[in-house]
């Protein structure tokens, strides 16, 4: 085993549904909805012919323009050929009616990537149903999604967050790129078109590096089992960052760029992560010392995390070095909630969402938590079970909230004091987890 930190259980328990590693891993990338297709287009353009791509949408015109090998047009009488019209319920119903077709699309695959832009009708509605369908066929399901820009309005944001929660419950792993964070990657003069293109490319890069990890021959392979263990049942929410550097000092540069990466909140995400996947891709000239240097830097920032690392060699990366980090964090449980310094707006949006969904539930008495999830959930018992699990921590959040804001006390409104990913304004004993009894 190549992971620097010892695994939590010494023998990785291979999930029964996963075939033995010797067989080459079959991967299918499925783009859902308009944004999903756009990312897919980026992927198809830059990938070898062997990869399998599929496109799903409710809108026939965009499907026709896609270069994907398999296309699935979801249509019901409800849509009348007009697409989902930004309504996730319509997308969901269309997907549910076509459940067998979705299943057959995922049949026989080991890994299914679902790419979608949340906030619209098709991506938000279809992808959770697709994720459940894919999971039933025994595949590992990893979602790569974007959430809308703030300027797209609160309604889309709520829809996206609801979709995100639902997808999180259905998929094994979820990697979310909030579009709003793209502002940190672009400058003032970037056109809107370019911005979307950059966001799409970024997401595509994430998928690509994931694929490379699983398929490219490497110095150090990431075992499929490791990946499964990392993602399965964690229902992880993840952040990811890609950094690349060229030249003789590339290993140092690449690590520095990574630790300052805006999508990792300047290293804070690394410190909070409890599982980390690092993929290092270089040309044949990649040296072990470089791998070591990069990993040393990263490990220093996440001492408690379980790290899975892999190194792949790609002829195209001669003299270049690219590192992709996917940092996963368990769904926040009450005990861990205090450790996370989530930005306030995310917290409040979660509360808003809870308020919206909790109100109808209370009318029917307290014992119907699943009514908060999608109405078409009955088909999959697993989905409801896990969505129920998700609600409990969310409810606990509310009671934890005042405590968390109090912990910074008089430094609450001052400039945050981030040092190696830790907020020094929080009491040390809280950060170290020292119990006072």
């Amino acid at each position: 085993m190549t992971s620097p930190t010892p695994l939590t259980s010494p023998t990785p328990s291979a999930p029964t549904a996963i075939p033995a590693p010797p067989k080459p891993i079959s991967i299918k990338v499925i783009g859902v909805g308009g944004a999903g297709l756009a990312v897919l287009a980026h992927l198809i353009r830059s990938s070898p012919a062997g990869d399998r791509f599929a496109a799903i949408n409710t809108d026939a015109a965009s499907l026709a323009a896609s270069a994907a090998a398999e296309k699935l047009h979801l249509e019901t009488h409800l849509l009348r050929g007009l697409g989902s019209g930004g309504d996730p319920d319509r997308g969901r119903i269309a997907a549910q009616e076509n459940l067998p077709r979705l299943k057959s699309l995922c049949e026989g695959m080991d890994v299914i990537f679902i790419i979608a832009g949340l906030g619209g009708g098709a991506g938000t509605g279809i992808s959770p149903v697709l994720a459940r369908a894919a999971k039933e066929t025994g595949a590992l399901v990893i979602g790569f999604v974007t959430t809308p820009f703030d300027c797209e309005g609160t309604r889309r944001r709520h829809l996206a967050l609801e979709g995100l929660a639902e997808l999180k419950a259905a998929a094994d792993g979820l990697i979310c790129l909030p579009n709003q964070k793209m502002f940190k990657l672009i400058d003032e003069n970037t056109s809107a078109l370019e911005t979307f293109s950059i966001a799409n490319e970024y997401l595509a890069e994430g998928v690509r590096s994931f694929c490379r990890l699983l398929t490219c021959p490497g110095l150090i392979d990431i075992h499929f089992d490791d990946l499964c263990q990392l993602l399965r049942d964690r229902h992880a929410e993840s952040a990811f960052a890609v950094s690349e550097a060229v030249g003789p000092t590339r290993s140092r540069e690449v690590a520095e760029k990574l630790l300052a990466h805006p999508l990792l909140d300047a290293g804070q995400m690394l410190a909070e992560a409890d599982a980390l996947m690092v993929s290092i891709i270089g040309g044949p000239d990649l040296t072990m010392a470089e791998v070591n240097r990069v990993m040393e830097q990263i490990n220093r920032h996440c001492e408690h995390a379980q790290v899975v690392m892999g190194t792949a060699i790609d002829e195209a990366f001669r003299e270049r070095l690219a590192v992709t980090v996917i940092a996963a964090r368990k769904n926040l449980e009450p005990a861990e909630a205090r450790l996370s310094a989530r930005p306030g707006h995310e917290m409040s949006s979660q509360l808003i969402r809870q308020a919206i969904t909790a109100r109808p539930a209370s009318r029917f008495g307290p014992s119907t938590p699943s009514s908060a999830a999608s109405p078409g959930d009955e088909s999959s018992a697993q989905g409801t079970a896990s969505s129920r699990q998700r609600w409990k921590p969310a409810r606990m959040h509310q009671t934890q909230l005042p405590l968390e804001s109090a912990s910074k006390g008089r430094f609450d409104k001052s400039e945050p004091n981030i040092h190696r990913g830790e907020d020094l304004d929080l009491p040390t004993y809280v950060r170290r987890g020292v119990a006072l009894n």
Partner: protein
Amino acid sequence: MFDLPSSIIVGLEIGTSKVCAVVGDFGADGALKIVGVGQAPSRGVRKGEIINTELAEEDIRHAVAEAEQMADVEIRSVYLGVTGRHVRGFNNRGVHPIFSADREISEDDVQDVIKNAKTINLPAQNHAIHAIRQHFLVDDQDDIPNPVGMLGSRLEVDVHVVHGSLNRLQNAIRTVKGLQLEVDDIVFNGLASALALLTNEQKELGSLVVDIGSGTTEYVVYSNGIIKHTGVLAVGGDHVSNDLAYGLKTSLRRAEQFKLDHGSAIVDDSIKGQTISIPNENGLAPKIINLEHLRRIMSLRLEEIFLLIGQDLEQADALDYLRGGAFLCGGGARTPNIAKLAEQVLQMPVSVGKTNTISGLKSALDQPEFATAIGLVKFGSFDHRKRAVKASLTRNLKATLSQLFHRA
């Protein structure tokens, strides 16, 4: 007639918990003595930086007035201490080619190379507070203390640059200037504390000075008589109080009082289970506090401060040069057993520093809180001597000239 430089030097430190002004006087014999101290509780400062100008102005006025009264002088200008998270130190090297025909290095070349070392690598919006020369290199010949008069084709200098965000530095300067006080110079607080605490011998041996203020902790490393490393952590005594307030569920003011009355940097086994009960002034039930918790919270925070410093020094390769040990000052140095804790963490002899490089009021010199302000006076005295030399030079020149004219 000619404005003679006044014989007093004032150091002003605008700290997070107190504003402190110290007056030094050269006196008749030319030896610097501390003659006055003024202080006022500070309300407008967080983590070493002014956040409320009005309150800060008022506090500065109080402190300066008190110092004026005690020393019986009028304060016109001050040496201002600055600190904050934005202040950083790094070592830099400047290069200057020698063009003159005889290849002799002149004083101008030395000034040029230092200017070069000061500006290179500096972020555009930052200002270099200090550029302290470490040693010169002439054509790769190492460790030259003074290259003037030597021959060479290339002059290099290693300097330690302490720099900070220009705007934030200017905030402090403007606040002081708003009170009709001149600012002679700004000085990094950590450097001032080190000047106050360390003797030349200790600088030569290699020593670490840690100034634990209430908003920030500054640290400076001297070795072989030169500054090797400086740093600021925006963590200090305030954080200890805040942690206590959070952990013991009490008000910040109360927590501060607990810290002073019952605090310790080390958790003893003997206090296990001991409690302190505090009568509540509002007529509510008295509160009982576990002494072990109180000290555990404090100890963890203080330990972390030293750990962070230790890590930083290790990274800067400065840890191996500290044969003289470490010296603590600032209000945090008053915490019982703090030297013991620091010894455990940093693995070197640690003591609470005494201001023994300057004479004067005994009551002021013995207090670790005043180290910075006294150091500011000390810094000013170096500056002052330089100016005095210049002033006397011009005076001599003028005298000779007028003599010549009289003769003619």
